[in-house]
């Protein structure tokens, strides 16, 4: 049995200190009110204990002033906490533009991760210290949740859509990665680690060859997965290259050639921009929009085009979808690439 008994997990991200400070403030507020109430109760219970059966205490029916005081003061404190917490949350929810991109796919019961350079990992995430890392998460089956206590971040990986999270590690080391959303039998073994490295070590690590070797539960899950899924992506290609290969293989360029008169709209520059739809509305060209347009191609029809695109549901898995989207995003004109940072 380990006998360490800390009160805080390791703080290894830029946000961790801010979360802990707010947590301590909340602890202080709680202690103040908790101790206040406890002392009042104990003091009253002793001081005003019943001394004879015939006691007839003086009746006090209330005080508007006190009622106002103990409504308004807690409300004021609550609003301070709200604003403080919302500020931190706003930071947690807005990845910096210069973040490294890592795609995360959860499945029962393993985490599959892929870096932009094409490097894959299972239940492990290697990142450089001092560099923001943006995660794009989804799930192949049920809802999972990507949780790194040392970074104070958590984000559900929801099937059928993309969610994002980001962090910037501040300390070299190895940290717990947990699945925090109950996902079935081996939920508590859907764990792994985040390895924070010197940038140079990270570059060296990226350059190493070889597919990840899953261990334990993940190994069984990987063995059960269709073999094609892993092979098709091409572990050592960059995400964009893998996506381009798929783009050609699936015949996407036949319609989305970008030439005038194509059956489908040009894809260059779509990412991060508003897209006009046939029904007059507009939609932001983000990852979720692209995902939907591939899987459920009739959901949103671009203005000026016929609804002729077949669905690619079942032909591409979650990891391949992320590769395709990485490729489509890379088609964005260079001066608009920064807009990607604003996608919620």
């Amino acid at each position, binding site marked *: 049995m380990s006998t360490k008994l800390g009160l805080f997990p390791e703080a290894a991200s830029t946000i961790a200190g801010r979360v802990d400070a707010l947590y301590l403030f*909340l602890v202080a507020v*709680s202690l103040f009110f908790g101790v206040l*109430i406890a002392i009042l109760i104990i003091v009253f219970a002793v001081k005003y204990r019943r001394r004879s059966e015939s006691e007839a205490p003086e009746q006090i029916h*209330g005080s508007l002033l006190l009622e106002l005081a103990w409504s308004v003061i807690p409300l004021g404190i609550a609003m301070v906490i709200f604003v403080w917490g919302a500020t931190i949350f706003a930071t947690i929810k807005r990845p910096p533009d210069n973040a490294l991109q890592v795609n995360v796919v959860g499945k029962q019961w393993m985490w599959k991760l892929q870096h932009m350079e094409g490097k894959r990992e299972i239940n492990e995430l290697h990142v450089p210290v001092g560099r923001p890392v943006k995660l794009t998460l989804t799930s192949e089956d049920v809802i999972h949740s990507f949780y790194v206590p040392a970074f104070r971040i958590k984000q559900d990986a929801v099937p059928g859509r993309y969610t994002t999270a980001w962090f910037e590690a501040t300390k070299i080391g190895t940290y717990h990665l947990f699945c*925090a959303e*109950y996902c079935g*039998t081996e939920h*508590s073994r859907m764990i792994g680690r985040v390895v924070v490295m010197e940038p140079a070590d990270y570059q060296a690590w990226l350059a190493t060859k070889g597919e990840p070797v899953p261990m334990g539960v993940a190994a069984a899950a990987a063995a059960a997965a269709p073999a094609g899924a892993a092979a098709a992506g091409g572990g050592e290609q960059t995400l964009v290259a893998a996506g381009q290969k798929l783009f050609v293989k699936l015949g996407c360029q036949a319609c989305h050639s970008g030439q005038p008169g194509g059956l489908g709209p040009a894809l260059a520059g779509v990412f991060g921009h508003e897209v006009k739809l046939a029904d007059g509305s507009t939609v932001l060209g983000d990852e979720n929009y692209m995902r939907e347009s591939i899987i459920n191609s009739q959901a949103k029809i671009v203005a000026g085009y016929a609804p002729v695109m077949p669905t690619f549901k079942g032909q591409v898995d979650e990891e391949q979808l992320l590769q395709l989207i990485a490729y489509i995003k890379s088609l964005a004109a260079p001066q608009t690439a920064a807009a990607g940072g604003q996608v919620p």
Partner: protein
Amino acid sequence: MMEDTTRGTNYLNAEYGVKSWLLTTDHKRIAMLYLISVTAMATLGGLFALFVRLELLTPAGDLFQSDTYNKLFTMHGILMVFFFLIPSVPAVLGNFLVPMMVGARDLAFPRINLLSWYLYVIGAAFVLFALFTGGVDTGWTFYTPYSTSYANTNVIPAALGIFVAGFSSILTGLNFIVTIHRMRAPGLTWFRLPLFIWAHYATSVIQILGTPVIAITILLVAAERSLHLGIFDPKLGGDPVLFQHLFWFYSHPAVYIMILPSMGVTSEIITCFSRKSIFGYSFVAASSMAIAVLGFIVWGHHLFVSGQSVYAAFVFSILSFLVAIPSAVKVFNWTATLYKGSISLDAPMLYALGFIGLFTIGGLTGLFLSTLGTDVHVHDTYFVVAHFHYIMVGGAIMGYLGGLHFWWPKMTGRMYAETPAKVSALIVFIGFNLTFFPQFIVGYLGMPRRYHFYPDEFQVLNVMSTAGASILGIGYLLPFFYFFWSLRHGALAPANPWKAAGLEWKTPSPPPTFNFDQTPIVREEAYAYPLREAEVV
């Protein structure tokens, strides 16, 4: 104490035989039926909690298979939430006391009241069937698409059980609302009502407005599972997060279904054992209604990391903070009621003061969860487990046990033994804190909930928690013994053993079938302490 000790006819001895109980329409007998059934379900749920805590003694998951462990915490949650906590105070104490406190001879719809109990039993039978034919492993929250497409356990019978039991809850709420509106004794105006009635009124509003939503949601889960309708599973074209919105739209207010009635109990006990009128009557009454209303617009705080929009998160966060205000108002008013009182620390009072303590901790730690910046870290960890146990177990069960002790003489006509009752109140309070306080810490350290295996560094705190749970278990078991003992050996209870205000104390213990020999007329406010000599029967 001039009560005649030779008993006249009362609701317990008016009729004999199993049939006279199973076909009764007397709200007091139905309350007793509920008492037996919810106690049975709580015992089973407690047994599962015991297994969960035993498994968590070691990080290695060595006592059960993971599947079994997952079923244990799921069944613990389903039984405790839907079949114990939600019906506990309203269906047992509320059933017994709402008509008596308003001076009525029964609830507005006595046969519907009996139907409520049968629906509860049928719902419970479905869930027990699910349990004994293999169990359910979705967690009591039934999150999709796990529950609809991936779990291979008995989700459908459990879902149907919750669906049926929901109607029991709706009908009880309906009965209370009509009774409180239409059957108050002459002179019993709204602002003379005991706060127990206000609390049950607020609870009933939630039961009627919220429960249909969970009923239909859980039915949709069963429908998607059996008919593959695409409602929640994205592979079928559904939206898994939609389930969370629907589920918490009910299940957050459901927490107030569990806690509001206990708040009502606390108001009755605090005033009686300090012989004081409640401090700020209208604020305590209004805060119950405020909690009921606000409770409906905070569900999104369960979805801060589900990928809902940042702006939705802001709104749900600030609304969640607003619920803290009426809760704080109640705690301050109870404390102020003690001021200059004539305080006697009998067992019900110890439970009520324990309620205030545990509810205060539960409420304050709720702030950590409505705060966006900290919720991201503690969401779905043991911090949340600790928080909601402080509210739902610490709070709700302290109130329930306090009320059970307080009205036990009225319900059974017998006094329980005071000393073991005080000891058990103390053991529950200490055991509870030892069990759940370490979970706040292990949660902040990052231990996710529903973990069968866990990293070694969390073991110390888990051992503390399990040790506390064994103390808590003893505290919960003790009342079984002295309550049973009192049924045969307890001193006969006078009509008003605590010298309490309130109409229920102005009729014999146990009360006659129709509660009052003649309709009482109310001429004073609630909690008109100290009682005039003539009233101290």
